[in-house]
């Protein structure tokens, strides 16, 4: 064992190490049967991107339909199916697993000084479950789709539609177990696999965020699983748990569904927040301001997140007192989120800020997430909610948080750790351009939807009154720009696999443990178990090390 010392890249010998996790074994089977968390992360990254582009294509169809006030591109039934499949694929097959299954999988063992996740076989199983669920979702789409909306609202889903509710439900059920296993694996790993000296308050905030998200995955996902099972039993066998003709209550389904699906948005956003903590500290060369507050705010979001689900149901006939309580609790969730935003902003203060691509995405995240979060407070206020719910305001709010927040964070993370994952740098200039294009495209797409929502344009319709057309055209045009913004990284990142500059161990001169080993790492990650002997993000310490090194060089030179 030995202490790990942060070191600067030695560019004179920059080359990809011959032995690494990518080159260790070859052939398809060595990937499909791997237990290596890094390879599983890559498998996830490829399959996630695939589903992202299917979901994205469906979004494109929606925006194209909404270019004109009439339902002219597709029949209204088809439109229902398109937005449902867009929601199902994007939420269950992209957003929920996005950062945890790729970056989390790849980095958590590296960050805590472990050789792998605690349960490698379970990790691989979770990928297979994801693929099984995803295949079923694609099958559903190919055989006619489903048109209930991604919320599977009863009794619509149990009694009134003839589309593939069962297969979609099963797909979500299976994907849910994939997510449960990922979360379970992370919790066990973070508890049991930390290297000597890696105390809880030396953990990178990325790990804290994933820990909080994992708690949500483990506790909330089984509830939606049982809700889906009951819907399936109701459709097939005709049991009556949600059936009003037998005395069942459709609202009960909503409670069970949102008990998962509200925490699920925190499952989606928390890992993204973890990425932002890493990038913002690295590119301002400063320790994250208020480390403890940011760490605990993740946990607070996870805890509060369980007690706000009914704010999705303000207009669905729950009692006024419940509305009051849930409205208050919803506003409380804004507090830990605000703690994060403020602390990140203070981290920037007097930092040596540089504007590499991950940092551009980070700035995008901070602005857009703040808008998305604040409009969430509007919607948590029951009076405003009754006016705005089921309009495009909801759509805009959700996409600001998820696309503006989460997707920006995902891209920030992918760019930030790309050198670690592949050993090569992405091309900087064009990536910065892509980040700017994404930001512009995003705002053109979704900001008009806030205005449309306040003007009263309802969501989930293929047609709309002609006076809304101008804003819809803006939105569709923005979506086109956004599409370019998402295609570019696919192209240049693929290009960089072969032609990118060699990154070296620590291209960002960051302090995290993952940067102290070779890129790409060995299958075993660390040849000797590291010992953590300093705080996370200890940039001051790093600067002192560098100064000392330079001084000793001067002394040698003089001598």
């Amino acid at each position, binding site marked *: 064992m030995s202490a790990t010392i942060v070191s600067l890249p030695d560019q004179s010998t920059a080359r990809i190490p011959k032995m690494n996790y990518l080159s260790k074994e070859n052939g398809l089977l060595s990937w499909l049967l791997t237990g290596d968390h890094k390879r599983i992360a890559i498998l996830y990254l490829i399959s996630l991107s695939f589903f992202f582009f299917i979901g994205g294509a469906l979004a494109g169809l929606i925006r194209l339909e909404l270019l004109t006030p009439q339902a002219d591109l597709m029949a209204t039934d088809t439109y229902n199916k398109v937005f449902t499949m867009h929601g199902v694929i994007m939420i269950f097959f992209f957003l929920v697993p996005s950062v945890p299954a790729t970056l989390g999988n790849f980095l958590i063992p590296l960050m805590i000084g472990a050789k*792998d996740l605690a349960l490698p076989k379970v990790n691989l199983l979770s990928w297979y479950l994801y693929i099984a669920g995803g295949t079923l979702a694609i099958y559903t789409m190919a055989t006619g789709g489903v048109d209930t909306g991604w919320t599977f609202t009863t009794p619509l889903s149990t009694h009134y539609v003839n589309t593939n509710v069962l297969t979609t439900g099963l797909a979500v059920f299976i994907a849910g177990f994939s997510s449960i296993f990922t979360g379970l694996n992370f919790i066990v790993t973070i508890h049991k696999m930390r290297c000597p000296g890696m105390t809880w308050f030396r953990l990178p905030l990325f790990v804290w965020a994933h820990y909080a998200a994992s708690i949500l995955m483990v506790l909330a*996902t089984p509830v939606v699983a049982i809700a889906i099972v009951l819907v399936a039993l109701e459709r097939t066998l005709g049991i009556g748990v949600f059936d009003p003709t037998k005395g069942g209550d459709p609202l009960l389904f909503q409670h069970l569904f949102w008990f998962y699906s509200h925490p699920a948005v925190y499952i989606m956003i928390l890992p993204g927040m973890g990425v932002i903590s890493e990038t913002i500290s690295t590119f301002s060369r400063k320790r994250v301001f208020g480390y403890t507050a940011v760490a605990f705010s993740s946990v607070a979001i996870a805890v509060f997140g369980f007690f706000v689900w009914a704010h999705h149901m303000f207009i669905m006939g729950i009692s006024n007192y419940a509305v009051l309580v849930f409205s208050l609790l919803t506003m409380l969730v804004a507090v830990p989120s605000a703690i994060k935003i403020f602390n990140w902003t203070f981290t920037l203060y007097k930092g040596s800020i540089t504007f590499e691509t991950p940092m551009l995405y980070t700035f995008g995240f901070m602005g857009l997430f703040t808008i998305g979060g604040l409009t969430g407070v509007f919607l948590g206020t029951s009076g405003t909610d009754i006016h705005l719910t089921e309009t495009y305001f909801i759509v805009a709010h959700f996409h600001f948080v998820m696309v503006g927040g989460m997707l920006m964070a995902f891209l920030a993370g992918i760019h930030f750790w790309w050198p670690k994952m592949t050993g090569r740098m992405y091309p900087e200039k064009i990536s910065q351009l892509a980040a700017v294009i994404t930001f512009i495209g995003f705002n053109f797409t979704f900001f008009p939807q806030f205005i449309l929502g306040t003007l009263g344009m309802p969501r989930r319709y293929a047609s709309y009154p002609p006076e809304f057309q101008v804003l819809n055209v803006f939105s569709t045009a923005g979506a086109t720009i956004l599409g370019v913004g998402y295609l570019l990284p696919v192209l240049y990142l693929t290009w960089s696999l072969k032609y990118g500059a060699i990154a070296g161990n620590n291209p960002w001169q960051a302090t995290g443990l993952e940067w102290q080993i070779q890129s790409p790492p060995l299958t075993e990650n660390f040849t000797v178990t590291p010992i953590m002997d300093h705080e996370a993000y200890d940039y001051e310490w790093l600067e002192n090390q560098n100064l000392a090194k330079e001084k000793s060089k001067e002394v040698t030179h003089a001598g």
Partner: protein
Amino acid sequence: MPDSPVIVHGASEADHHEHPAYLRHHFESVEQQADAAGFAMWLFLVTEVMFFGGMFTAYLIYRNWYYPAFVAASHQLDVRWGTLNTLVLIISSFTMAMGVWCAETRRKKGLVLCLMLTMILGLGFLGIKSIEYSEKIEKHHVPGFHYSLQSFTDPQSDSAVYAEYHDKPLPLDMARHTEIYFSLYFALTGMHALHMIIGIAILGFMIFRAQAGAYTSGHVTFVENFGLYWHFVDVIWIYLFALLYLISRHQ
């Protein structure tokens, strides 16, 4: 450490120390491995609690709303069968616990015997459950298209149950709600039975492995964790027995 902290070398520490063969490469010690697996199993059981929790919530709400229907419908369950099944499961939990002890003290024959007994008792539980299910099917108490309200609107037609409880006829709209009771009954006991079936399948696999001596050489994590699962399924049944069979049988 020098500038390039990684020594490119295929061999790992494992070559230098004596480790039991079952220690996976990414763990430092056997204790860490057993700790991690046990912790993971407890977490998995937490997810199971949440899974059944959804149905228990539904039960709680509907029981409050449709109390008379729930009482009348619960009279259709035979407490004797339920008690017998509870006994069977508790004994199977005991044999499972003995199995874990046998594995820990490296008694191969004892382990195989205990696992076999557990499996037989598990199958016995399912057998008794299927007798109960077939009664429900005969009386058309399975929710759905063929559901019959006769036992509740006209209790005297159901002479066996009437002799025991002397139920008054329920008004039609309340009688309809008995279908919710049976929906939950079948959902809950069905999910429980599914867990039993999975458990029995794993038991079969374990008996096969135990005969080869896989669990009696010090590596008992798998048996221990399966034991936790089996006890958990047992505990769920205890709750089901209390909620579905026992409480408020008399109005």
